[in-house]
């Protein structure tokens, strides 16, 4: 039953996004434009090796692109009054959270798939294909943290009048530790060719971060999604 409900909410969110393309288009355009701005702001002549700073730029872009998507994740439910329909049904609130977080994770991953080649073109002067596994692991763990924390806080913000303003204000300070771990791990891989052993501590931190906020969501979501 919970699986059927989870898949129904996830399918509904994906189908809605497939038809409107509001969130994905906004996230993708923002990410591309941010990369272009970074390129012209830091290295307009194209002479510098930006590889040591590439990890930081990449995660700043991903983080703000994710914020755009997170802001939208409950907006439609609220705007169309559908949140009451969801809450009046016999769905465990944790199932709602899991489905929403998965949808946010998928949207972010899709944007990353499209943006990373452009990012490599703009900012990375030597290939890092040999470290794709390490990069993928960092991205997966960091994305999970962004989706879990972001969905939790988007739920908190949805019942407030200024939800578009509130979400970044509470999300960004809390996501800084994740940003630091993801940035240093990514930079170590891209710039220094570090292996999994060298970034093991940061991977562990990212995993622990995900678990902490998953537990927080499990414990508080019923309350957060209520009145």
């Amino acid at each position, binding site marked *: *039953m919970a699986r*059927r*409900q989870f*898949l*129904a*909410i996830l*399918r*509904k969110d994906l*189908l*809605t996004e497939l*038809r*409107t393309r509001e969130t994905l288009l906004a996230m993708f355009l923002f990410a591309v434009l941010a990369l272009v701005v970074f390129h012209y702001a830091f290295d307009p002549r194209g002479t510098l090796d930006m590889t040591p700073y590439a990890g930081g730029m990449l995660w700043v872009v991903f983080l703000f692109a994710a914020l755009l998507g997170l802001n939208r994740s409950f907006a*439609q439910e609220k705007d*169309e*009054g*559908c949140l*009451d*329909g*969801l*809450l*009046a*049904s*016999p*769905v465990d609130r944790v199932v709602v959270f899991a489905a929403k977080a998965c949808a946010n994770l998928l949207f972010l991953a899709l944007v990353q798939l499209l943006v990373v080649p452009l990012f490599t073109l703009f900012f990375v002067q030597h290939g890092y294909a040999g470290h794709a596994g390490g990069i993928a692991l960092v991205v997966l763990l960091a994305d999970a943290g962004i989706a879990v924390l972001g969905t939790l806080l988007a739920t908190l913000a949805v019942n407030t*009048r*200024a939800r578009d*303003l509130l979400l970044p204000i509470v999300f960004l300070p809390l996501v800084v530790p994740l940003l630091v771990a993801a940035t240093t791990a990514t930079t170590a891989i891209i710039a220094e060719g570090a292996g999994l052993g060298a970034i093991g501590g940061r991977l562990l931190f990212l995993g622990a971060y995900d678990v902490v906020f998953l537990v927080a969501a499990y414990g508080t979501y019923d309350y957060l999604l*209520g*009145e």
Partner: protein
Amino acid sequence: MSESMRAPVGQDQAEDATIRLASVSVRYRVPRERMASLKEYTIRWIQRRVQYVDFWALEEIDLAVERGEIFGVVGPNGAGKSTLLRVLATLSTPSSGSVRVAGTDPRQDPTPIRRAVGFIAHSPLLYPELTARENLRFYGDLYGVPDAAARSDALLERVELDTRRNDRVRTFSRGMRQRLAIARALLHRPRVLLLDEPHAGLDPHAVDILDGLLAEVRTDHTFVMVTHSLERGLQWATQVIVLAAGEVAYAAPVVGEGGVAQPGAVAPDEMAAACRRAMGGGPEGAC
């Protein structure tokens, strides 16, 4: 067709389709003065100048609705009618008092109530980018309806939307959305139906469809129907209360010929007068 609309009736269901409210109050804390903006509110909150007052959306409400009864709730805007429905639908938690819907206290476990209740809210609770059928399938999955596809098709036919089943809801008129909302509310064969102005936005033909559906399921279900119109409430209800400012201004069974409670009776003068008082003397024809 009508048989497929009905929930299977059993002894357990007969006992579990009742509603009991005892001294139920819902209180919100609101700023004493209306703030022009969030900025003003924030500044005054930092300066500790925001004073809060208690706003009682519902105050000391008692009611008992038996299986098969239609309970009408009449009152003006802001009387607490929708708050009452939200309490019964487990969307709002009372500040005090006890609630039992379908034999269950929502504070102990709201899930059985959510399974038992069908809710037609003020907004249709439909996703505009999904088709009519996808919306019903979505809610069918949430409620675990075993024959969701067949049931959705039957209900779409019943509300005369079968030719539009694959159209997105955003292309529907207000009346069509309301008809689809009725199908959504009946999809999981609820034992208790909560109706918030169900006739709003419907043309006469759609009103006939809704009334036909309600007539088909009325013997198996317990209804709570919120309406601005006492006439509409009396057309269906076996009991009517008039709510004003969160309190029951008047309550009585609808008494027909021979003193037997039955729907469709003429409003007692006292009830009409209470309704007019609650409405503040208007609007014309409401009471």
